[in-house]
């Protein structure tokens, strides 16, 4: 029964990943032959296992190095920001029964229902030279910043699109902390901040880690947000992957970058798997 989706994934995701890996190592035959005949700047395998020339080219390219740095920076900053905001919302919702708190949690989920294309574009217009932020500030005589086509806009866009998932995950984790546990901590003389830090946060660790890993992996490989809101250069690797594939006609370099991103994502993913197994181990009776 478990087979159909696994087969589907193996054929249409697993197989392309494997051929992509072979191609990145310079194997141009088989399924890669169609792509390889029209590709430019290809590194063809010289030994039985292939060649690392394509990786060497990508990783030593100064421009791509800057893009890699930007990708990592945006990922780290966005993830931290998303976690802080999401945890704040979740906490407010947990500790306050007010209607405002509930409304806030719903509000934070709205971006999930807006297609990313629209979200990115809306953010671009909002923070552009003639956008709302500068217009509003101009009313009081302040020359506002232009964030459109900058790294800041990419971060804003990433936070905007990633917030709903993080809020949902962390909220449910924080909601699951029983009242009695919080009250017992307050009763023992702990301040609210102390209670949050030493009781609520540790009890919600797993959902927080899951939210953080999914946010980070999502931002790391993102294309739409940096494509619309970010600068032409430097840009994020997701955009480079697209450009090298469809504009520069260098699919091999594009695939190599995909593996670089995948390698980074795997490191983050390891945290996710670890967090899950920790709970699974605890759940075993």
């Amino acid at each position, binding site marked *: 029964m478990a087979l159909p989706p696994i087969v589907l994934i193996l054929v249409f995701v697993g197989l392309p990943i494997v051929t992509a890996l072979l191609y990145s190592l310079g194997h141009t035959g088989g399924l890669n032959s169609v792509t390889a005949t029209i590709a430019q700047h290809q590194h063809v395998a010289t030994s039985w296992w292939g060649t690392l020339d394509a990786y060497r080219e990508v990783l030593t390219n100064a421009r791509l190095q800057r893009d890699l740095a930007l990708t990592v920076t945006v990922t780290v900053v966005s993830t931290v920001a998303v976690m802080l905001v999401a945890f704040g919302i979740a906490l*407010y919702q947990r500790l306050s029964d007010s209607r405002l708190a509930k409304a806030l*949690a719903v509000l934070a989920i709205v971006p999930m229902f807006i297609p990313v294309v629209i979200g990115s574009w809306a953010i671009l217009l909002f923070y552009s030279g003639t956008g709302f932020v*500068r217009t509003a500030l101009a009313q009081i005589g302040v020359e506002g910043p232009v964030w459109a086509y900058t790294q800041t806009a990419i971060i804003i866009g990433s936070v905007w699109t990633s917030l709903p998932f993080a809020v949902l995950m962390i909220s449910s984790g924080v909601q699951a902390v029983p009242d009695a546990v919080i009250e017992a901590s307050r009763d023992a003389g702990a301040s609210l901040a102390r209670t949050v830090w030493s009781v609520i946060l540790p009890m919600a660790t797993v959902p927080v880690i899951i939210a953080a890993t999914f946010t980070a992996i999502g931002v790391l490989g993102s294309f739409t947000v940096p494509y619309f809101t970010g600068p032409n250069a430097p840009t994020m690797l997701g955009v480079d*992957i697209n450009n090298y594939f469809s504009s520069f006609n260098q699919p091999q370099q594009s695939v190599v970058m995909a593996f670089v991103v995948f390698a980074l994502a795997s490191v983050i993913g390891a945290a996710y798997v670890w967090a899950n197994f920790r709970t699974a181990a605890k759940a075993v009776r």
Partner: protein
Amino acid sequence: MGRVALRGLLAVAVITLCLFVFGPLLWLASQAFATSWTYPNLLPDGLTTRWWKVVLDDPALGAAVQNSLTFAPLTVLISALVCLPAAYAFARREFPGRRAMLIGLFATNAFPKMGLFATMASLFYALNLMQTVLGILIVHVIGTVVFMTWIPAAAFASVPRSLEEAARDAGAKPLRVFFTVTLPLALPGIAVAAIMSFLASFDEAQGTYLVGAPDYMTMPTQMYSLILNYPPQVAAVFSIMLSVPSVLLLLLVRKHVMGGHLAEGFQIR
């Protein structure tokens, strides 16, 4: 004093968040009715519905709307048929490689989509799937597999076994038990998975463009060319239209239904 300061801080935070989330959307939506807009005026130069006519009269855009509204429900349906039995198996049976498969699904989800499409194209050429509806549906469905497997698996797992046993005891065969007890009780979780899948499919642009363009354009793929080739007002109109189905979905689902099931689903057991 401290209390007042805290309340003030809270108010600022709430307003900032509202502005952060809704500001761009409202700003974009208001463009749809503006003749033009001169910086630094707070209000547009004039109001018009001209841009709506442009969009509604463009047959290509109409086709995109139709395509999107066809592909998304189809994707959800296919994904459910393919993934729900697997979700049940993951929840109720212990089989070799179970955990490896769950992690494998997660890993494939972590591979950047664009890098995947780069070599997927060759495969699609080889299988004659380029420029076909089936090809587009495959691209969409693989983007929903994680949701459709994980979230319903958690929902199935949370149905107490004793409820199923009670049905067996009452005389129901296993298949009957599934359809009268297990499935109805797991339905809220499955609904959440369906919504997530619908949104994922509705949002998919790169893969659809790669496989379907120019024959099969969907709303998001049209959006790319609209933004690049038309005045912003036209794209704004189209944005509003593109948001309608999703926002309707948002209004339909209750927030308390969403959170728990989603969170449950994203924990591998």
